[in-house]
């Protein structure tokens, strides 16, 4: 619990260690997050996503610097893919953020997905809480950005910033189905390139055609030259104000908490079930019956539910 106290005081080493622990399902870290949970919910969480090569890391770097000018403390979580073959990864997002290394008001952490799909790692939500407890005013989450559908960011962020680049052409159409609708704010980065205006117009048209009460704003930026960053933060502020002044923010957080509860419960149930040799043996036994076509897997799953969950000692209420 000593770690928790240090974390609350903003200690970077404590934060760094706790993220490692939460990434490795350390029960002590879970206990600390549990104990200090009341200190979360203070930070504004912004997700940054978009196709590969859109310049997300550079944009995060500039956004963080802009927020620092307003004296806000900024945490960054940068997620990169883990190799499915070796389980290792190369996390390279810091390359673009090296000036921020020395800023006492900034904390950056690189995370491997470690087999998790959806653009984040399984521990990203935990890491967000850790940065929140340590007193970050903003938490920027940069998703994997490999072009897969990275919709998990919606579950983690208050606002999702969608980063696009000129010259995607038909790709915008293709992207639309998967990820266009998760963007709350859009930015066309690398707007000094040919076709930037057209890309912006195409996004605008698509959003005009299909949006709810909130019509996402679209701006342009050239992150490497630090242009368009102020307008972008204004757009993010507008979205935050819209969320906060309506019931949207609380609705979103309730919805996300619901998903988190389900997720954690699922994990807990599986862990409970599979952590038990009897259960594992029993499932193997049942599997043989399915394989030999003696029983069908559908009714078996009901059996398992009854035997291992509902009927289990201290039975869970399902």
């Amino acid at each position, binding site marked *: 619990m000593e770690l928790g106290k240090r974390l609350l005081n903003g200690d970077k080493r404590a934060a760094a260690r706790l993220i490692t622990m939460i990434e490795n399902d350390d029960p002590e870290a879970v206990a600390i997050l549990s104990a200090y949970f009341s200190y979360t919910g203070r930070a504004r969480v912004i997700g940054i996503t978009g196709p590969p090569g859109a310049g997300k890391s550079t944009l995060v770097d500039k956004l963080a610097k802009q927020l620092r000018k307003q004296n806000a403390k900024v945490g960054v979580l940068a997620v990169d893919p883990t190799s499915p073959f070796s389980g290792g990864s190369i996390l390279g997002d810091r390359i673009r953020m090296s000036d921020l290394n020395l800023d006492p008001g900034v904390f950056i952490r690189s995370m491997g997905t470690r087999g998790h799909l959806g653009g984040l790692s399984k521990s990203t939500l935990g890491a967000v809480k850790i940065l929140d407890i340590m007193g970050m005013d903003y938490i920027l989450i940069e998703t994997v950005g490999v072009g897969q559908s990275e919709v998990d960011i919606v579950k983690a962020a208050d606002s999702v910033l969608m980063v696009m680049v000129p010259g995607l052409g038909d790709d915008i159409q293709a992207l639309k189905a998967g990820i266009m609708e998760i963007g709350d704010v859009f930015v066309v980065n690398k707007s000094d390139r040919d076709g930037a205006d057209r890309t912006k117009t195409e996004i605008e048209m698509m959003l005009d055609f299909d949006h709810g009460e909130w019509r996402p704003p679209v701006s342009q930026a050239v992150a*490497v030259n630090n242009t368009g960053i102020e307008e972008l933060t204004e757009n993010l502020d507008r979205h935050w104000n819209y969320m906060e002044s309506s019931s949207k923010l609380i609705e979103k957080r309730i919805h996300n908490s619901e998903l988190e509860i389900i997720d954690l419960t699922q994990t807990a149930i599986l862990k409970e079930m599979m952590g038990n040799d009897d259960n594992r043996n029993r499932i193997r036994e049942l599997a043989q019956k399915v394989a030999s076509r003696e029983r069908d897997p559908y009714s078996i799953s009901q059996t398992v539910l009854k035997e291992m969950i509902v009927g289990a000692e201290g039975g869970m209420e399902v």
Partner: protein
Amino acid sequence: MAGKEKMEQLKNAQQEWTQKTDEAVKKRPERKETFVTGSNQEVQRLYTPVDLENMEYEEALGFPGEYPYTRGVQPTMYRGRFWTMRQYAGFATAEESNKRYKYLLDQGQTGLSVAFDLPTQIGYDSDHALSEGEVGKVGVAIDSLKDMEILFDGIPLDQVSTSMTINAPASVLLAMYIAVAEKQGVASDQLRGTIQNDILKEYIARGTYIFPVEPSMRLITNIFEYCSDEVPNWNTISISGYHIREAGSSAVQEVAFTLADGIAYVEAAIEAGLEVDKFAPRLSFFFNSHNDLLEEVAKFRAARRIWAKIMKEKFGAKNPKSMQLKFHTQTGGSTLTAQQPDNNIVRVAIQTLAAVLGGTQSLHTNSKDEAMALPTEDSVRIALRTQQIVAHESGVAETVDPLAGSYYVESLTNDIEEKAMEYIDRIVGMGGAPNAIEKGYIQKEIMDSAYEYQKQIESNDRIVVGVNKFQTEEQPPQGLLRVDPSVGELQKEKIAELKKERDNDQVVQKLAELKKAAETDQNLMPFILDAVKAYATLGEICGSLREVFGEYQQSVVL
């Protein structure tokens, strides 16, 4: 018709031979299942005229000094005169380097080659925070015209040709050289030499960049334009494959990426309004030479042929000099081993042969101890002697392009051309080298080759003598050259003194003028020259440009 008939006969005979040999191989297998070159191109058991069936002599090879220059850019090659033996050198301070240059000129070296330290290459003065620990380490520290005056003290600049390995701040160092010459009473049209000035390969492989792509390309075309009028005998760029190869590329990639960079420079200059035949004759190239002797020879020959075709067909050059790929070669630093360093002398000898058989215009041979430190005077002398032995004793310099007509070498030359053109077409399709670099494409291709190579060594699929085979217990080498750590302090003092002595108002004014010009599209060379002459420091000049241009952000694809 008779030719065709003979070819059919030969093919049949070859088929028979192949069958017979394959049978024999079943009983007594060859050393390996497949054989590959140093760059992983597959090598056949045998090459015959069948492999060159479609090759037309005049079209593919021609005569030396004639299009497409496959056999060399001069008609008599080394029968006229040997290549320039040019050892890259530069140590710590201008004073020490000056001494080394005089020593090398005494030893019979025919050209100077200046290595600068990293702060100089990245446009920082020796007193900058990032310069700490780096001053004078990999070359000479130049902070202002003062240092440059000392560097060339007593060396008449109208009588030597000087090659400067300088890229991002090339215009500043060239301006300093012109200013020193002026003080010696040597007019700028008397100056001969080369600046490397190749920013694209800095982004790709070497890392000493300063400004983003666009202003960097502008500085380069500014130099092209200025020199074509004022310093007409200066080679304004040395488009470098050397560092691309050092970064781990294959021979094909070395040719392809270097020539793709070359295309980008030509396009930038044409876009800036220059006429191709006015600047293209001053373009030069810089390649690496590795251990696979015949592949390397083929590489140089292929590069010449590709460049000639590009210049003629793509850019419509009329002047033959625009189509001639002239190049400097350095033996491969990454092929040297820290283990059994004396073996490196042999490697360098093979690489020297490759460069000479490939028709290089000048050559730097590495010293045996360069995998561990900067070379000592003794090892530099052996490296130079290696070139002299090849020149005077080996006999390979007595006729032009002696390996031409070898079925294997000509096949390899064709192969390298074909594969390099595939890369070049792909890069052009991506919008040219700058875009391909920004996407990280070129870097990734190189990295893949480098990693593959490393894995082959570790699995013993590739043998490096003394490293993964034939190892011996060794004593650590003695007597390596060390740079005196006080150099940094010394340079700092010199800067402080300079700033007291010079007319600081004038410096401020010249820097302000430079910045103003940088915001327009004027040629910056005259402004840089003015600032240099007022003894503005390199860091001040590059700092002023940094304020206007910003800095380049690395594209890393792992």
